[in-house]
């Protein structure tokens, strides 16, 4: 096909797959944030198939220094993990997360959507001020739907940046998730008779005052 012919064709049909692959490659290379198939499609000429282009591209980058990875609904290029040692100089010092914050994050990730009262029930201690705050600020968690129980408590879920940070394709890929579920450890099992800990948010708030003493 001559150049003139191909130019003419492109007026009517979608560009060839090789071209589409180049386009997706250019767009994903240019951005640090993951892009969804729909976002890619919006920028491409009519009739393109970004999903297929992604599949080709992913294959092309297998085993290379950068990989095409899936992050939630989006796609992004990331350097191969085995080359991290070459790149440490780029690291921006990360704020150190407290043990309470790490546990809270894990509980939200594995139990999401998850209320504050549920986090407190699992950890057996009130969530200290600043813990949820810090995770929200890092954009690792966000508000989910309110729970349709008395008090309609807010829930928390993990974000796409959380998945991106930990190299997870989706929350279903959390390590050990299946085993935990099979062992019944992700069930919401209330205390029989509920004499130990109040369940609803309001009471939890009252507890917050004192048990903060134990954090950090």
């Amino acid at each position, binding site marked *: 096909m001559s150049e003139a012919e191909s130019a003419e064709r492109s007026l009517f049909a979608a560009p060839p797959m090789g071209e589409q692959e180049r386009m997706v490659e250019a767009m994903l290379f240019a951005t640090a944030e993951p892009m969804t198939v729909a976002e890619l499609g919006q920028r491409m000429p009519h009739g393109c198939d970004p999903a297929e282009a992604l599949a080709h591209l992913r294959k092309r980058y297998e085993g290379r220094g950068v990989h095409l990875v899936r992050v939630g609904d989006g796609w992004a290029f990331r350097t191969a993990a085995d080359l991290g040692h070459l790149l440490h100089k780029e690291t921006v010092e990360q704020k150190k997360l407290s043990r309470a914050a790490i546990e809270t994050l894990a509980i939200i990730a594995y139990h999401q959507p998850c209320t504050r009262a549920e986090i407190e029930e699992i*950890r057996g201690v009130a969530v200290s001020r600043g813990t949820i705050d810090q995770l929200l600020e890092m954009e690792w968690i966000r508000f989910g739907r309110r729970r349709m129980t008395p008090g309609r408590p807010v829930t928390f879920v993990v974000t796409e940046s959380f998945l991106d940070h930990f190299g997870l394709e989706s929350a279903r890929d959390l390590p050990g998730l299946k085993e935990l579920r099979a062992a019944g450890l992700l069930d919401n099992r209330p205390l*029989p008779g509920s004499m130990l800990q109040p369940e609803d948010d309001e009471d939890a708030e009252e507890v917050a005052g004192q048990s903060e003493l*134990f954090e950090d």
Partner: protein
Amino acid sequence: MVDAGWEATPAQSVSERLAAEALIVDVDGFEGPLDLLLTLSRTQKVDLRRISVLQLAEQYLDFVNRAKALRIELAADYLVMAAWLAYLKSRLLLPPDPEAEGPSAEELAAHLAFQLERLQAMREAAAQLMARDQKGRDFFARGLPEDVTRIRKVVWSASLLDLMQAYARIRTKDDFRPFVMDRHHVFTMEQALDRMRGLIGFAGEWTDLASYLPDGWETDPRRRRSATAAHFAASLELAKRGQIEIRQTETFGALLIRRRPEA
């Protein structure tokens, strides 16, 4: 799950005693009673599913007693847990009461074991999560991103935190407003006196004081209270001046007033 056949505390070795003392000194290092229980459970060296809750309750109560002896102040929720474990222990040791309602001691013990296992599982999950390759440490995003977002000259940025803090700031501003009496719902005696002076000329018969309340002040309880008090005070004043008579036939009954016939 509950080892009912568990016997009296075995004599502790010196090293175990030292370890127990170290635990107590480290009380600030625990993230609440459940964390402490989890730590204590490790001394049993068994799978959490087969842990002896009775033995654990003993260990916990022993811990609390030692802390007391060492005059270490334990926070309230440690003591709440101690009280609950003491209750659970007595329930586990006594033969079950067939009359008793609610969950059995075994169910309560099983739930505690579940809580410990779940906390342990979450800790392990958290550790696994943090052990993963992380962005910015093990793998990296494009270092020189070009803008692929929509064309817009200015992008206004505001985070959810900004939004919520702004709202919180507005809503709590009132808490700190200098104290000013809210006069919107207050009817003064002077106002009532003025009103009644004009109206009393028509009150030849006994009339309920409540019927003197001005329009718009009878329904809202706050306004009604204020207007009633003002009109009552005003009618006392008028009675003192000999302009009206007041009558009440029973305690908390209606207050009736009329113009003094000779006035």
